[in-house]
C-alpha cells in the first residue's frame, strides 16, 4: 500500500482509501472522482517543485496538491 503522492508514473493503481481529518476535504475528493476501487494514474508533476500533481482518475484529469494526494492510499492494479 502506498500514498497517492508516492506512486510510479504512468502505472495503474487502485484507490484503497481516502482518509483525513478534514471531512469536507475527503468527501470532496470522493466527489471529483477519488473513490475507493477507482483506477488512478499519476500523469505528471508541476515543474520545479513537483507540486501539484496531475492524475487521471476515472474519465477526468485532476490536479491535486501534495497534501491532498497524501490523503489517498492506493494498491497496485494487478490486472494490467
Amino acid at each position, binding site marked *: 500500500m502506498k500514498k497517492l503522492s508516492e506512486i510510479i508514473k504512468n502505472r495503474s493503481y487502485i484507490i484503497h482509501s481516502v482518509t483525513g481529518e478534514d471531512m469536507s476535504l475527503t468527501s470532496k475528493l470522493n466527489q471529483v472522482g477519488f473513490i475507493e476501487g477507482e483506477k488512478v494514474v499519476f500523469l505528471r508533476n*508541476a515543474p520545479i517543485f513537483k*507540486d501539484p500533481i496531475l492524475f487521471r482518475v476515472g474519465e477526468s484529469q485532476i490536479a491535486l*496538491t501534495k497534501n491532498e494526494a497524501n490523503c489517498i492510499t492506493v494498491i497496485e492494479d494487478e490486472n494490467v
Partner: protein
Amino acid sequence: MSKKLALIGLPNSGKSALFNALTGSRQKVANFPGITVEKKLGLIKNGQDTIEILDLPGLYSLDARSEDERLTRDFILKKYDDIDLYVLVIDSTNLRKSFYLATQLKDLNVPFKLVLNMSDLSKKRGQELNFDFLKSELGVDKIYETVAVTNQGVKELKEDLVNDSMDKTVQVPDQFISEMKKIEYVKERIKRVESLYKKVVLKEINKDGLTEKLDSILLHPVWGIIALLAIFILTFQLLFAGADPFIGFIEEGFEWIASIFDGLLNDGYLKSLLIDGVIGGVGSFVVFLPHIIFLFILINLLEDFGYLGRVAFLLDYIMRKLGLPGKAVVPLLSSHACAIPGIMGARIIENKNQRLLTMMISPLMTCSARLPVYTLLIGAIFSKEISFMGLGARGLLMFALYFFAIFMGFLISFITKKATATQTVNTLMMELPPYRTPKLKNVLFSAWQKGVVFLKKAGTVIFVLSIIIWGLVTFPNAPKDADRPAINYSYAAMIGKTFEPVFKPIGFDWKITTSLIPSFAAREVLVSAMGTVMAVDEEDEDTLMTKLSKLMKNEYSIATLLSLLVWFVFSPQCIATFGVLRRETNGFKYPVIFGAYTLALAYMFSFIVFTIAS
C-alpha cells in the same frame, strides 16, 4: 407571475455556453440581497412566452465547499428565491462524477430537466448509453442531448422549458446538511453512483489522445515553462497592439466632440462643464473599454481552449505560498497595462477570498498611466548621462519601481495569508478539462458583455467623481486681476494649501498637493496639472515634459521628488479603480479598505524615503 428556472451543473459542464444559447443576448446581472457572488439572469423567449432563467455557480454536490457552491446549494434547498424548475447540465464525457449530484437531486424530489451536453464529443469517442434506464433512475421523462456551443438540441429544450411544468416540491430531510457530510452517507452514495454508471454506460468512452499529447508539451518541465512565457508574452503583446489603436480612436473622437462644442459655445461655466466635465468625464472611462474587451477576448480564448487551468497548475506552488492561486498571474500581469481590466480579470478565480486579495493588489502593479509621471520625476532626479555600471540611471530607477511594486504586491498577499491563515488556500483539487477548440462567437459575446457591464456599473461612479473633480478645479473663478494661473484660486488649491502641513513630513508643498487632486481622475493628469500650477505655458506634451522636468529639478529637492515617485507607486490615485472595485465587490467596503491601505502605505513609504534622502 411567470415561472422561474435555474441552470445547475458541475464546473466545466458547458453550463454557461448553454445559458448563452438559451437566452441569446437577453441577459443581465442579477443581484440578490446579501449575496455578493454574481449571477446572471436571462430571459428565454419562445413565441409569445417569456420566462426567467438564472445561471447558478457550478458545484460537484450539495455538500458545498466554496462560497459559490453554497449559494447554489442554498437555492436548491429553498433558502432563497423560489425556483420552479431546474435544468441539470451534465457533461456527457464525464458521467460518473455528475451522477453524484444528479442522484442527490432525485432523492430530494427536486424538479429538474436533464441535459446531456457535449453529446457530439461523447458519441464521436464511442460512448453508448442506456437512456431508458437513466430516465427511470433519475425520475425524468426525457433526456435532452445538446451541443450548446453550436446550438444543437437547444431549440427543443427551449420549447419544453417554456411549455412544461413539473409538479414536484423539494423535500429536505431534517439535518440533511450535516447528514450528507457523514462518511456513511458518502460511501453509500458512491456505491449507488457506481452501480448506476455500470448499468447506464453500455460502452465506455475512448481516451482523449490529443489532450495527453498536448499536455506532454504544455505541462513539460522545460517546454511547458517556455510555452507559458511565450503564450503570456504573445497575449500581452496582442492586448497592447490590439487595444491601442482603439484607445487612440476613442481619445480622438472625444477631442473631436469637444472641439465642436468649443466652436459652438461662448466661454463660461457651461462650456467648461460640458467640455472638461461631461465630455472629459465620459471619455475618461470609455477609454478603458478597448483594454477590457481585448483582455477578455484573450482570456476567453485561453479558457475555452483549456489552457487557463494549465496556467494554474504550472504556477500553483509559488503562488500558493504567497496566498494566491496560480491563475492570479493573469489579472496581475494585465494590471501592468491597466488595473481596471486586471480587477475585472480576477473573475477567473473561483475562491472568493483569493479573488478579493487579487483585486486588492492588482492596482499596485505599474499601470501604463504611471509612466508619464515616472518619466517626469525620473527626468528631474537623474540627468541623462548618469549611469551605474554602464546602465543608465533613469532606466535602472524605472526598473526598480516596477520590481518594487510587484514585490510589495506579493508581500501584502503573503502577510494577508499569514494573518488570516485560510485553509482553502492550501487546496487545489482542480480538474484540467480536455482541450477544445474555442467558439469565436461565445468568446466575443462574453467579452462584449464584460465591457457593457463596466460601462453601465463602473461608469456612473467614475463619471460622478470626474464632475466633482472638475468642480474643485474650476470653482471659484480666478479674480479679474489674477496674476497667477486660474487653478491657484480654486477649491483644489484651497484644499491643497489646507493639507500642506499634513504632507510636509513627506516633502510635498501645496503645488504638489493641489496637482494630486485632478490626478485622481487619471494618474497621468499629474503632468499637465503640475504644468498648470507651475505656469508652464506649453501645449505640446513632450516639450511640456522637458520644461517641467527642469523646473521641478530647480524647485524641489531630490528627497521630495523621490518621495513623490514612491507616492505614485502606492497611492490610490485613480477613481476608475474605485469605480470598478465597487462594481466587482458589490459595495463600498472594499474600495474604502483599498483606499485606506494604499494611502497609508503611500504616506509611510514616502515618509521613509523623504527622511532618508534628506
